[in-house]
């Protein structure tokens, strides 16, 4: 420990290192209370665990280094947290670190102003990680923390003051998240990722206070304040992504403003306020964040050209991304990057998707995240070349995905995350490898199987991307699990430990028995058009139980063909697709 200082005006590498190590321990103590608070009370994709593991990856690296500059410490934290990032919240968390590292790069130590500035960078990076940022999530909380830190600098306080004011600002934003995101309001909770960020900062503050010989009791813990009230629970990564999941292909957006436009402005003396007011009338979902030298702009507009022009007047523009949300599936970020290059082996009529056929460098390799031995066999049988175990029980880290991509000889790779909470980690992994990689946005294991079925080794990576995405969206998927807590979802009051049935992120059934709830879920999903039900039973279900359910379905829906397979997945009694 360095000697105790009464007032901290500059932050050194060692200070930052201690802060992160301390915050990591502190977070670990509180992760379960964050875990309990997903909008969807399902036993997977836990925000607390994901953020904790992400933080531990950074702490693990920092344990063994000492006497480094603050720039170096921040750099190590950024790199290691990115590799260890799990879940969407973990990825955003790691991006905050990255931005902060960028702001502190090359510095031995940092003063208040420099740390405040680094926070602004953090916000820009975090928003950048999400293709369509949604307010009322960890991003909102992060932004308000940065705003608080700006104000703190103006009041020329020390670092303890800075963190306290930033925390206050962040907590106020956290309390407002239900107003910004209807799903939170309905569930009567605040955003879990946002709370995770608050808990992290509290851990940092605790480290500063210890260092400054303050007593621990002087912090008013969020855990003590927010969580005591039963109505103030927190949704998970769900906050950001659940409504995307539910919206499917027809993601909601104002038809008048179909162009999702994003870019960075680099210049001198940029004014977020001025840019915001100038762009405000040109569209909706406007986001302008950053500071004097770099500003991130995100807007939905009818005239992207005009946006570019205005921004060009302010400085140079970078990382421009314009999507027509009408056909978002065609031109996703990675789809356009993958290019139109055709597969070299296109004339080769022997297909490569079989297990026995060795994969060559010029063929497309497929990485799938799966859960359960049965489903893993099915994925392999259908041509996935590399399986990452995880999915529902444990989200894989960015590094896990990077390693899987690297382990295949192919130069072109398709990643099937098969879970909404793994998508961002997969997209980060793409940035870390030299190969051409596309992430097909599959949000459940049955969707992943549908996508895999559409894979054609004889066409280009981008063509496969489009085809597989569309095919995945054509199947309806059902998931049957249990509620980990009481909750209110889609106007249904859910009781802890009840069996719940979800279809593509929407709660459609609830009951006391697994087979009964599954039958109810199928009933709610069946329109009369569907021809085949592919049912995968989980680890906790016996084959005779599954057979009973199949008998029941076959009697009730004579036109429906039912195919039963052992999936072996944990936590989910049944997964199925209806098509």
């Amino acid at each position, binding site marked *: 420990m360095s000697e105790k200082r009464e007032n901290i005006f500059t932050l050194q590498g060692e200070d930052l290192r201690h802060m992160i190590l301390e915050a990591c321990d502190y977070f670990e103590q509180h992760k379960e209370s964050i875990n309990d608070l997903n909008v969807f009370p399902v036993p997977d994709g836990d925000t607390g665990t994901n953020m904790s593991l992400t933080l531990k990856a950074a702490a693990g690296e920092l344990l063994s280094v000492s006497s480094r500059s603050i720039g170096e410490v921040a750099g190590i934290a950024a790199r290691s947290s990115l590799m260890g990032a799990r879940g969407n919240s973990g990825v955003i968390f790691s991006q905050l670190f990255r931005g902060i590292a960028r702001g502190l790069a090359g510095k031995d130590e940092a003063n208040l102003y420099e740390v405040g500035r680094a926070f602004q960078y953090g916000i820009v990076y975090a928003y950048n990680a999400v293709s369509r940022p949604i307010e009322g999530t960890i991003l909102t909380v992060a932004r308000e923390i940065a705003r608080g830190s700006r104000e703190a600098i103006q009041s020329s306080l020390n670092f303890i003051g800075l963190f306290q004011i930033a925390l206050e600002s962040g907590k106020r934003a956290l309390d407002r998240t239900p107003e910004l995101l209807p799903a939170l309001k309905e569930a009567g909770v605040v955003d879990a990722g946002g709370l995770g960020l608050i808990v992290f900062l509290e851990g940092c503050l605790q480290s500063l206070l210890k260092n400054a010989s303050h007593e621990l009791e002087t912090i008013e813990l969020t855990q003590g304040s927010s969580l005591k009230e039963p109505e103030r629970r927190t949704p998970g990564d769900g906050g950001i992504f659940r409504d995307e999941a539910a919206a499917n292909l027809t993601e909601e957006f104002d038809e008048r403003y179909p162009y999702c436009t994003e870019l960075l402005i680099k210049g001198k003396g940029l004014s977020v306020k001025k840019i915001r007011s100038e762009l405000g009338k040109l569209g909706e979902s406007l986001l302008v964040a950053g500071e004097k030298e770099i500003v991130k702009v995100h807007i939905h507009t009818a005239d992207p050209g005009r946006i570019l022009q205005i921004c060009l007047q302010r400085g140079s523009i970078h990382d421009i991304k314009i999507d027509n949300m009408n056909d978002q599936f065609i031109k996703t970020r990675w789809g356009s990057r993958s290019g139109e290059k055709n597969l070299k082996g296109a004339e080769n*009529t022997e297909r490569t998707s079989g297990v026995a*056929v060795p994969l060559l460098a010029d063929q497309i390799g497929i990485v799938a995240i799966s859960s359960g031995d049965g489903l893993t066999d*099915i994925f392999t*049988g259908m041509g996935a070349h590399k399986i990452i175990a995880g999915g529902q029980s444990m989200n894989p880290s960015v590094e896990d995905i990077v390693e899987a991509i690297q382990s295949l000889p192919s130069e072109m790779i398709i990643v099937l995350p098969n879970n909404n909470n793994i998508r961002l980690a997969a997209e980060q992994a793409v940035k870390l490898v030299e190969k051409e990689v596309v992430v097909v946005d599959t949000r459940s294991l049955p969707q992943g199987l549908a996508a895999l*079925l*559409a894979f054609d080794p004889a066409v280009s990576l981008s063509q496969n991307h489009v085809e597989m995405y569309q095919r995945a969206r054509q199947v309806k998927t059902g998931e049957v699990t249990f509620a980990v807590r009481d909750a209110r979802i889609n106007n249904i009051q859910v009781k802890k430990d009840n069996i719940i049935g979800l279809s593509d992120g929407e709660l459609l059934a609830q009951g006391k028995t697994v087979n009964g709830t599954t039958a109810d879920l199928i009933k709610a999903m069946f329109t009369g058009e569907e*021809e085949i039900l592919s049912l995968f039973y989980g680890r906790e279900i016996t084959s005779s139980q599954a057979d009973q359910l199949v008998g029941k379905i076959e009697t009730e829906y004579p036109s429906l063909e039912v195919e039963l397979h052992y999936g072996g997945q944990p936590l989910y009694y049944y997964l199925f697709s209806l098509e």
Partner: protein
Amino acid sequence: MAEIRIVTDSTAFLPQEKLDEYKIKVVPLYVNFSDEIIIDGSIENKVFFAKIRQSSKLPFTSQPSPGDFVKAYESIIKNGDEVISIHISSGMSGTVESAASAKKMLASDSISVVDSCSTSAGLAMLVTAAAKAIKEGKSRDEITTMLEKLKKKIKIYFVPATLEYLKKGGRIGGAQALLGTILQIKPVLMVKNGKVDVFDKVRTMKKALKRIVDELPEKTEGIQEVAILQAEAEETVVTLKNLIEERLPGIRSVIFDLSPVIGTHAGPGVVGLAFLQE
């Protein structure tokens, strides 16, 4: 004056009237059961498929011998006539090789052997086009050039009821990769570069049929008729015919039975489409 005569094989499965009308000579392939050898097309399909179902072991098929071709060719060239010999794809059968050997053995330059890169209705379309060209007085060179162009326009898509038959017969080509699957899959296959290849994979027969009908041109102008290929699949054929009528109202569609040799490989229950795409 020297005539041009067409020789084809039994997989073209042309009706007798057409063979008579155009004086087409057919060299048959064989289906070998453990207890008897059947000449392709010599018995009714219904009887043949009943025999396949009863047989514990799937029969194997064999190409005509060069000798079979020598006999067929000799009977024509001895009168000073010429031969255009059009056959099942070399990617599916050794028939073209046998024909080429026969040509060599006869050291005749009045025989042209054409690899159709197709079979069944696709082969039949080429044979019919060649026969018409002969009637129009085209030369052998003109006709073989025409056939080389025409065969690239033939499209064949089909959906086997099961992959078992293709697998046992070893004619599975690119569909090999589908064998490891645990999920029930309806493969939609095509003939590509003369070989069986995977066109798509779907989960149900209804989707599979829709998938192949979607491959038809959008307008009737580009297409003269559609051949509906089938073996023991009468019910599915009705569904398929309706789907075709929906897409291309008024289009002429003819039901085309697969010869026993092709039926042995595709398996009973198979349906498909063959058409010429301009």
